[in-house]
């Protein structure tokens, strides 16, 4: 689907960075409004075709860092619709200047719509900074 949500979920202009705490991937919220992070789920993440274990991913927003298993309870922590969140991959380093295939499936459960699971899945080649 040629939508903003698909086109910009991942950011090829600087959306993959190396850091001593692990690779950082910028992610946009693929919905029209801010949502509590409790309804955000990392469905799957692959870097260069290798699955990244959920336990190796931290979700960072509003200057705070959360394990993925903490998210469902965080109904008071809002991800503002214009902000990029960061997925931090504790076990992964990416050398600046190298290209990496990142495939992310992000699931949303909009909290005012019963039974809706909104799936956005995007694969992009990102150059690490």
């Amino acid at each position, binding site marked *: *689907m*040629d*939508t*903003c*949500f698909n*086109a*910009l979920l991942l950011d090829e202009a600087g959306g993959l960075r190396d850091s001593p705490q692990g690779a950082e991937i910028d992610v*946009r919220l693929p919905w*029209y*409004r*801010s*949502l*509590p992070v*409790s*309804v955000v*789920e990392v469905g799957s993440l692959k870097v260069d075709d290798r699955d990244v274990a959920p336990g190796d991913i931290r979700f960072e927003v509003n200057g705070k860092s959360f394990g993925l298993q903490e*998210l*469902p*309870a965080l*109904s008071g922590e*809002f991800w*503002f*619709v*214009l902000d990029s969140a960061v997925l931090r991959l504790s076990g992964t380093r990416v050398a600046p200047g190298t290209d990496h295939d990142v495939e992310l499936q992000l699931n949303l*459960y909009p*909290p*005012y*719509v*019963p039974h*809706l*699971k*909104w*799936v956005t*899945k995007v694969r992009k080649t990102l150059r690490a900074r």
Partner: protein
Amino acid sequence: MSTPLKQQFKLGTTLFSFTNEFWQREFTFEQLVAKVGELGLGPGLEIIGFQSIRGFPEVSDDFAARFRDLVAQHKLELTSLAINADVWARRGGAPLSVDESVAYLDPQIRAAAKLGFPIVRSQLAATPEVVERLLPLVEKLGVRMGPELHAPWTIDSPAIVAYRELYERLKSPLLGFIPDFGSCAKAWPAPYLRQLREAGIPGELLDLAMEIWNGEGDTQWKRDEFTRRAAAGKFEPASISRLGVLFSMLIKQDPRVWLRIMPQIIHVHCKFYDFDAEGNETTVPYDKLFPIFVEGGYKGYMSSEWEGHMYSRGSGIEAVQKHHALAKRILAPYN
């Protein structure tokens, strides 16, 4: 030929229409408000708290003052602040209780009053019991409140009937309804269907969806029936859920049903998607809906609400311009 019927309602825009522009960080909130004024897409202005305002429902005095100035500068008239009943915010946990729902909506209604909105658009996820509990607050603030009547519900669905019974009992002029015209659609948007085909949704699955959507039956049943038959046909769950969304965006319903609750309609969402070469909207029968609201003597505002961001990166600003042109053409005989 002249007609004794006169248009008494006003047009407007919800910034939801400009989701593409805002989300891509192409225009700021303030710039989009200004656009509505500059391009004559008001006078009504509607916004969604959780879309436009960082930190919502907290609204600082400074933000509220700047917003009111901006609205006055562009000669806009505030219509509705869309608020959200996020009752299923705890993933995998219990939905918000009545007490929690009241506590969740209370600051959003206060934010509306602080910003100067006379109406809040609520959602059916807030039950009649929650609404009754909030009545003293809306009375104190002088704000009108109503749920959006959105697909897949018709005005005779149990959730809406329960509201109608509540209103019959409370008889408050502050409580009403906000129809969304996606609930009287005549077709699915062709560009959306094209995108779904290109995204690899099988043709047979699309055919099944269209057959059920166009057929007879309760609108909520149709969504379940599609899910059931699609699963039985061994289609991919991701494809099924992608199409299932459309059953909750658009339903077929006779446009004349609104006459049955017209005195309780406090605001309207003119949901729209796509235009043909003559400038007619292809999914929602505006040629019928606008005259019905003239006939019903509706006196509120109509927010043009483009939902094209679901399948397109196109310009919401241009879409709303086309919708206003269509509205003015259809309404010309009544002016």
